[in-house]
């Protein structure tokens, strides 16, 4: 058990260091950091001064260690394009992305599990078949087209919901939230649907497949033989055993959530991290790019770790095997 946890932590650390190295190499070798920070008319002396200040005259390994130390403190230098600290930019845009991602995950999980259970129980029903067909089409559709389609229907034609931005936000300390105002909530609807759609189809198909498996297993047959009502078997016996793989896969899907968040934020001009990153790529704003990369890797590693641990907690067999 302990060895299992330690190994997961160690693997995560290795991934983080490799990614940090890539980020550092990008920062150091893509373009000239000095030329990007001082203006055209800076003198040689100014340049040398800045080189010394930034530690760029140090040997490469020392520079990398300093980069790591700064990264741990959350410092990634100054954005070439906006002239502000990258850490401030990220802190400013983090709430928008977190609210979008969490809400879409909640939406996808609730609806996905519900539809998956339904499709498994009424396997031959017309509705269930229709839902499965729809999910197949949904998987083949690019995210940005789903977003555009929703905008066209609900913002352009029906004029029910706004098509871009976060609406009015309320500041709680440094955190800004769109959950407390009407326009903020309205603005969330379409992006959440867009981002949640892919996860929804995935979770739904997974729950259905697992549920069908469990419903065929021996303990369900015994439960039926004992005369337990079908409803109770479906929800207490079957669904509970379905959730173990679903939690794992849902956690591992985080990578695609990050990717789809980049696209979703661009479609809806959502002021989040993904849009910040796309802008940085367009203008080769390397400090923002490398900071985003390290940030995403960090989130991946933490989520993978948590998923591993949840798996151990949910599945008693793993606990015994690790001992």
């Amino acid at each position: 058990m302990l060895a299992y946890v330690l190994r997961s932590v160690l693997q995560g650390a290795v991934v983080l260091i490799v990614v940090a190295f890539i980020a550092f190499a990008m920062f150091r070798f893509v373009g000239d950091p000095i030329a990007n920070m001082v203006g055209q008319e800076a003198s040689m002396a100014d340049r040398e001064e800045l080189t010394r200040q930034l530690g760029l005259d140090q040997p490469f390994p020392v520079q990398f260690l300093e980069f790591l130390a700064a990264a741990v403190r959350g410092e990634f230098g100054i954005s070439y394009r906006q002239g502000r600290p990258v850490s401030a930019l990220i802190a400013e845009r983090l709430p928008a992305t977190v609210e979008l991602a969490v809400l879409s995950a909640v939406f996808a999980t609730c609806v996905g599990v519900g539809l998956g259970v339904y499709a498994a129980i009424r396997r031959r029903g017309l509705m269930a078949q229709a839902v499965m067909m729809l999910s197949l089409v949904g998987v083949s559709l690019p995210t940005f087209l789903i977003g555009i389609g929703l905008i066209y229907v609900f913002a352009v034609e029906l004029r029910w919901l706004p098509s871009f931005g976060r609406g009015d936000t309320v500041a709680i300390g440094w955190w800004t939230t769109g959950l407390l105002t009407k326009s903020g909530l309205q603005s969330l609807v379409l992006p959440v649907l867009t981002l949640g759609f892919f996860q929804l189809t995935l979770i739904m198909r997974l729950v259905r497949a697992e549920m069908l498996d469990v419903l065929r297993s021996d303990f369900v047959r015994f439960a039926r033989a004992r005369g337990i009502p079908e409803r109770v078997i479906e929800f207490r016996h079957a669904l509970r055993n379905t959730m173990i793989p679903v939690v794992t896969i849902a956690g591992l899907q985080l990578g695609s959530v990050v990717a789809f968040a980049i696209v979703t934020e661009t479609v809806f001009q959502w002021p989040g991290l993904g849009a910040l990153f796309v802008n940085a790529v367009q203008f080769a704003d390397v400090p923002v790019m490398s900071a985003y990369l390290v940030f995403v890797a960090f989130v991946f590693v933490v989520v993978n770790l948590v998923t591993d641990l949840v798996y151990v907690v949910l599945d008693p067999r793993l606990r015994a095997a690790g001992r």
Partner: protein
Amino acid sequence: MAESLQPGPASLKVPPTRGRLARAWDSDVLWRFRHSPAALVSTVVALVIVVAAVLAPWLAPQNPFDPAQLDLSDGFSRPMEANEITGRVFVLGTDPQGRDMLSAVLYGGRVSLLVGFASVVFSMVVGVALGLTAGYVGGRTEALIMRIADIQLSFPAILVALLVFGIFRGIVSPAQQEQATLFVLILAIGLSNWAQYARTVRATAMVEKSKVYVDAARLIGLRPLVVMTKHVLPNVTGPVFVIATINLALAIIEEATLSFLGVGMPPTQPSLGTLIRIGQQFLFSGEWWILLSPALALIVLALAINLLGDWLRDVLDPRLR
């Protein structure tokens, strides 16, 4: 069968050797192909789109990127309706510059398919070479390659492609960027998809390595490179084709997504994604057709290739399911 068993002078003759084509026609794969409506329909659709895109310069009513052929007063024509000023009819309508959308989609599909095919070939070559090396050589080399593949696979392809693109923007001077974009896109999408090939090929190569024919090839003194490419490689191609087909759809969608995000093909040389990005701006003013035709072309193309890939996977390699 029944005929050749019949006694008589006819059965004494050596039956004529059947041509390669006839034998291929009767092969398992093609038999199943002929009997699967989904595979037939998706192949026809995909082929029609590919041929139309390749022949775009001859098929398209106009060259949409030659300003001399555009007439501003044709702008904003609705599909299938005569233009209010010029009276001309455009099947799929026109954009604000009077550009025929049918021609734009044909030329755009050409760019999308070019990037898709080229990046699939690129990632296939890289992935197969690395996977074959890892599976055949083993040891430290294998551990290193597979670790890199693991890390690469845990990051979404679009993120990797965006990073490659951003690095390119930082290195290349703006003046050269426009011409180089096509190659950078191919590179970026190719580099973000090689790991899957490497994994599959490595697994298959490890199985093949332990077979007798490989030992035999080694015993007669062939160099490892020859054994790898001439003997092991032909036996790992099945799964590679399946991955390549499915990846073609993914690569086309990835290219469209990048172009849609504004980090792909420039408006002077648009792909389907760029056309969708442009069309989105006119959605709010009600000119839906500027968006609709490239979007539909992308969906149909991706869906057809996806279905074909699914079918190919079922036939060639059920384990990949």
